[in-house]
């Protein structure tokens, strides 16, 4: 799995991992029934504490996105809601892509667009949960 955690980002590592797994499901990279590596192997692969992986897995299990089967691993359980959500995310991504292209054509720098998006999402409460 191409997960990548940033230890110096202002977000707990387990949340980063949860988001990336969720994102992989939403974009269809991971599908219903797929198996994620065991806690120990993913911890070794990402070189993070097993507690990080364990916490992410157990929270995702709590959300119903993962099913942990003892001894055999972590199964993605993406029901219909997730599938339709995947479609929504795909459509949204197309919209964002074309908006970004338009803005770039109009001469805005990538950095400026980034800031505009951020301001729109987080201002005036800059620390709203970034999920």
């Amino acid at each position, binding site marked *: 799995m191409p997960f990548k955690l940033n*230890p110096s980002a*202002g*977000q707990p590592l387990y*949340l980063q991992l949860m988001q990336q797994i969720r994102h992989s499901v939403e974009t269809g990279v991971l599908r219903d029934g797929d198996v994620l590596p065991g806690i120990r192997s993913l911890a*070794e692969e990402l*070189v993070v*504490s*097993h507690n990080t992986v364990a916490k992410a897995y157990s929270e995702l299990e709590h959300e119903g996105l993962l099913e942990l089967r003892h001894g055999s691993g972590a199964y993605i359980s993406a029901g219909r809601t997730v599938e339709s959500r995947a479609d929504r995310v795909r459509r949204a991504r197309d919209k964002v892509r074309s908006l970004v292209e338009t803005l770039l054509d109009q001469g805005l720098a990538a950095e400026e667009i980034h800031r505009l998006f951020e301001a729109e999402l987080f201002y005036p409460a800059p*620390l709203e949960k970034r999920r």
Partner: protein
Amino acid sequence: MSYPFVIETQQLTKAYGKVQAVNALNLRVAANQITCFLGRNGAGKSTTIKMLLGMTHPTSGTGTVLGRTIQDAQQSRDLRRHVAYVAEDKQLYAYMTVEEMVRFTRSFYADWRPEVEQRLLKQYELSPRRRVKALSKGMRTKLALLLALSRRPELLILDEPSEGLDPVAIEELLQTLVAAAAEGTTIFFSSHQIAEVERIADHVCMINHGRLVMDLPLDRLRQDYRRITLSFAAEPPPTAEVQAEGIEQVRTNGRQITMMASRDADAVVERLQRLRPISVEVEPVGLREAFLEKVKEEA
């Protein structure tokens, strides 16, 4: 045996003449975690570890490791059967070969796991016939790790394990530590290398001039610690206006006031709006920044 913390010290102190190498240290390390003992060179890390392992006696204060009292000779011997230690200088018998070193160490421990020994010998590409003194620093670290992990230690203590290793060897070291932790060994390692600590540690205990200056889970640092910068159109208000609990390091710099919030940054920002800043910036605080600030504060 059950105990709330695998390591717990009360007012642990070590003085060398007038110098307080370790100063009233209250350290608590939880089980099943990777805890980093972070500090500058000479901050008191090695001295603390040596006291925990009964290699030097505290001037005052007490401590327990795995529930055993560190000053009690009998209990200290007993605890060392359950703790593995990788020293900074990786003191090994230079004249022995790898094979002899392994055989020699194995003879002391009833819980030796030959299958782990064999696996690590292969994985680390340690040639059994090689003399210890001919090993590179990285290889010597691997041998020390092999000797430590071939037992089933409840607690693995390492003093600056990555010192002098190249990036590839560091990566392998971190992987080994992560794997050992996943198998149920509690890890306590000292380091001043922020980048590696940040990756694998669940919890950080920061020591400076022999005192504990920070003790928190890294995910809490990531989640809660924020640097807040207020910019004003004119002269900023006096810093007393922003002081509050959970706010540290308030500084004025021209028309800006910066501070560090250790919790509830949202609420802090909301409260600060009444000062009518023209802009408010909120950034996460990395371990590097937190470390440098603590060291600066204490200087």
